[in-house]
């Protein structure tokens, strides 16, 4: 018996390799070196991310598959690589000060973040369902650990445990869905093959295929925090270390949407009539529950958790539209969301300070007078999240809702607009507290490290730049979604 080893090019997975090797290197260094070295871990992580970004840049424009057709090489993947790298780099820069305050500036933190990022990339570029699952688990397991990083903290523990149990539960549905699909399509899990076979009438609309669609919606819906699979989100986001929350809100969500979009746009266009209605209902329910509940929150992390649920709802509008603009807006908005959400969490970390002492929204009272620049950036991020022009949040929402209108889902657009008007209430409340309420106490100095300052400047500039000149990102996104049929 001869075993043929399929030919492959390592450079096709260059970014993952860099991150994985970088993470292992960090772990080794952590184990072998004296304590003082740890100070360099964020920088080392950033170097690894920088190299990965460079590799992605070199890969841009490549197309096809590699590794025995297990992974795709296309701009859709690479666009998401950039989102992940950006999100991770900003997270790493936010982390150091925060973790040192908690006495938890551990080497494994950075290693886990890099592992998770590699998992996300795997999810975005999979050409086979098993690879999607593999990526999901690589990412999720790392994030479960990260959520429970503060072992002595009751809430952090609770967050990790809940996320683990429910995550496992939902992964089972995802896996089950894949199994159904394997049966429905006659024994293949390659995405391109499935796409070809599911156009055949014999395979479409069999209960097995529909069951597969349902279960995949559940699996992905859990990771993007869609209703009714969202209930873990507030607890986990609140309990996890703030830097990890930021990472989850942007990275995990983006990765899940990458796989979600690829599977549904590429494999299931023939079942569109079936899943579009389901996602329509989920999108509306998700954004409504997220926004309405966010109004009543007084903990800023919890508020941002509900905001993140609402944003999952908006993003699903892009899936429902299922046209070119829908896919483009999904990509654009995920990038915009990465910038504005990480910026907001950056401010939360700075204001929260020693061991998250100031997480109540009333702690933001009077921030405008005491720390004008910090307040101004927070106001900008709040406006962006609320979708007020001329920020990236506005343009992104405009793309999303226009896509819905273009696809004929007028009511979806109306409900979306209504929702974003409701959401302005709780975002603006933070601004009001900052500028229109006297401080309840002296907030004291806020320690700006160069890294956090850089994050705030970069995200603030990015949010405005992408809002005033969205053309560049839009064109990139258009370029990236060409792989889907009919786009």
């Amino acid at each position, binding site marked *: 018996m001869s075993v043929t080893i399929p030919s492959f090019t390592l450079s096709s997975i260059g970014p993952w390799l860099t991150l994985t090797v970088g993470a292992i290197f960090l772990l080794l260094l952590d184990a072998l070196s004296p304590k003082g070295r740890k100070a360099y871990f964020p920088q080392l992580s950033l170097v690894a991310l920088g190299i990965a970004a460079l590799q992605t840049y070199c890969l841009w424009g490549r197309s096809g598959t590699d590794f025995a057709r297990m992974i795709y090489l296309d701009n859709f993947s690479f666009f998401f690589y950039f989102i992940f790298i950006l999100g991770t780099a900003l997270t790493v820069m936010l982390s150091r000060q925060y973790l040192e305050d908690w006495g938890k500036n551990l080497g494994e933190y950075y290693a886990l973040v890099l592992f998770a990022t590699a998992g996300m990339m795997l999810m975005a570029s999979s050409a086979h369902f098993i690879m999607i699952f593999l990526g999901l688990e690589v990412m999720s397991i790392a994030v479960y650990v990260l959520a429970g990083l503060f072992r002595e903290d009751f809430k952090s523990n609770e967050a990790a445990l809940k996320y683990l149990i429910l995550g496992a539960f*939902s992964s089972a549905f995802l896996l089950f869905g894949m199994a159904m699909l394997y049966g429905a399509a006659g024994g293949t899990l390659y995405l391109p093959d499935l796409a070809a076979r599911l156009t055949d009438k014999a395979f479409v609309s069999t209960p097995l295929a529909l069951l597969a669609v349902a279960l995949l919606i559940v699996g992905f819906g859990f990771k993007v925090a869609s209703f009714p699979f969202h209930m873990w989100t507030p607890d986990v986001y609140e309990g996890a270390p703030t830097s990890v929350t930021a990472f989850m809100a942007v990275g995990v969500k983006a990765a899940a949407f990458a796989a979600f979009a690829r599977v549904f746009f590429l494999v299931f266009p023939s079942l569109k009539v079936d899943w579009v*209605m389901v996602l329509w209902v989920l999108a509306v329910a998700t954004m409504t529950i997220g926004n309405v509940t966010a109004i009543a929150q007084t*903990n800023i992390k919890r508020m941002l958790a509900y905001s993140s649920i609402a944003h999952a709802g908006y993003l699903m509008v892009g899936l429902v539209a299922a046209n070119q603009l829908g896919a483009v807006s999904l990509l654009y908005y995920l990038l915009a969301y990465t910038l504005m959400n990480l910026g907001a969490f950056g401010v939360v970390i700075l204001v929260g300070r020693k061991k998250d002492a100031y997480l109540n929204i009333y702690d933001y009272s009077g921030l405008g007078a005491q720390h004008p620049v910090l307040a101004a950036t927070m106001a900008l991020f709040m406006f962006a999240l609320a979708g007020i022009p001329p920020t990236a949040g506005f*343009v992104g929402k405009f793309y999303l809702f226009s896509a819905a209108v273009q696809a004929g889902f007028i009511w979806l657009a109306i409900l979306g607009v209504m929702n974003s008007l409701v959401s302005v209430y709780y975002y603006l409340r933070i601004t009001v507290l900052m500028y229109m309420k006297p401080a309840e106490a002296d907030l004291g100095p806020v320690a700006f490290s160069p890294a956090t300052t850089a994050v705030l400047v970069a995200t603030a500039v990015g949010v405005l730049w992408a809002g005033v000149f969205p053309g560049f990102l839009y064109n990139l996104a258009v370029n990236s979604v060409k792989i889907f049929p009919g786009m």
Partner: protein
Amino acid sequence: MMMDYVWLIPVFPLIGFLINGLFGKKLSKNTVGIIGSAVIGLSFLVTVKIFFEFLNLPPGVKAVEKTVFTWISSGNFTAQAAFLIDPLSLVMLGVVTGVSFLIHIYSVGYMHDDPGFYRYFAYLNLFVFSMLILVSANNFLLMFVGWEGVGLCSYLLIGFWYEKQSASDAGKKAFVVNRIGDFGFLLGIFLIFWTFNTINFREVFDLAAKYPIGSGVITAITLLLFVGAIGKSAQIPLYVWLPDAMEGPTPVSALIHAATMVTAGVYMVARCSALYVLAPFSLTVVAVVGALTAIFAATMGMAQNDIKRVLAYSTVSQLGYMFLACGVGAFVSGIFHLMTHAFFKALLFLGSGSVIHGMHGEQDMRHMGNLKKYMPITYWTFMLATLAIAGIFPFAGFFSKDEILFYSLVDGHLLYWGIATVAACITAFYMFRAVFMTFYGEERFDHHHVHPHEAPMTMAVPLMILAGLSVVGGLVGFPIIEGAHKFKEFLKPSIAPLHAEVHHAMSFEIIMMIFSMTVAAVGIYIAYKCYIKTPELPEKITEKFPTTYDYVYNKYYVDELYDATVVEPIKSGSDFLWKGVDDKVVDGAVNGSAGMVAWLSAHLRKLETGFVQNYALAILIGVVLITGYLIGR
């Protein structure tokens, strides 16, 4: 050509905002004031230069578009950052920059002792920037940017004195009410794009011309846009925020809540005249809402004792006139009244600000009286503005208001005209009531604590300039003589006519004028009778009709009605979702004391499994429902 640099008009205030907002804390008050005012002055100069260049354009050029860059572009959709220079936008630019400039200078004196001086000027500059974007945009989306921006600044400025609970409540109210309007406006934009595949004003209007009169989609678009206008311009039923907005500093009331932002709705309707003339039903709605608001708000103005609130209801009422004009197709008259109103209403507010300033913060007219002795400049300028708003010849308000009354009769309905005439009488009454209570009669203030004094020069000079404009501002729209209505001739290219112009007999026009003057005179006489001749008369009337008075005084209890039917249910809904659907106990643990945590730890295991089970159950229900739907359908 300066026209190529039209973007400078909004950019100057933006620069002012950035300088004052970022470094204002470190700058001296004088510097802040000079920068804040100078940037507006520069915008005004650029506007004037462009105005003259526009006049010298070859005949036949109706409008010029200047694109700065393409903002959003996707497929067949483009929204440009571009400016539309045409008569309508030039009028608006001129009014906004000119009046703003005067109010900025006034503010230097008025706000001088306020600790938030730099913050105030930063907001004010940002407001002017947004307003200029609103009126000069060449497409709906960019206009919406300005629309949102002015709303935001208005909100910040109403709540400027946030230490006052009423101020921050008023800000919140303005915000929520405006959201409803914005929703309609945004939907209107979506519908426009969906219908015409473009959002550029001129392209939309050209395409719309192909639709038949009364077509459903145009009616829907115009109605949705009008919902936006109702919110922004404080018309029935969304007017409730404007009177409360008086909690802001008085110059803000003058600029935002009288002269500029609240007129945005009128501007938008006039800008879309090409759409409205195609939708007779929408025009009727506009006219009815305008007429009802005009009289409804006027009656409420009669019973107010706070000088600023009188002016607030008067603003709502005058905006109603402008919409009435638009509703009968007299868009030019609406814009004309918008302009003259900007002059005299800004003056009235600044005058009331001067009174409040001189009375050490007193706003209740019952505690004033005979102030003409102490503040002659304020008195005379206030008087001129009052004559203008009452519609006395030859002051500015006379020409514009008379024109509206005229068109509401010839192009509208006898009923519109009747309502508008009665409202004009009431307007003259309550405005003179305010003048008499404030500047005449006995001195009802406490002489030991209050020493009324005239305003400083930075405040008095803007008053005098505005007074001049209130006197002569109406002459650009001189009626009767052919061709003397320069304003109409100028605006013609921007406005779609409802029908071909009809010439009316000169004698008819003159009779109408005399009649409207008489109506105003009657109002003034009643006020004179009630507040100068027999000051006990109002008291008696109040006693005779206690219920009516109670209703009017309490503004027909509309606020209470909204509270009970809209606000409370939403509040309890959100609470329910939070407390009922969201888990109670985890939240308790988060907010709770150490005892709570201890209690939780003890029951941790039991409770935790419970929660995760709940969440898992939700997932499972989701699975069942989705599967059931997909397979069962």
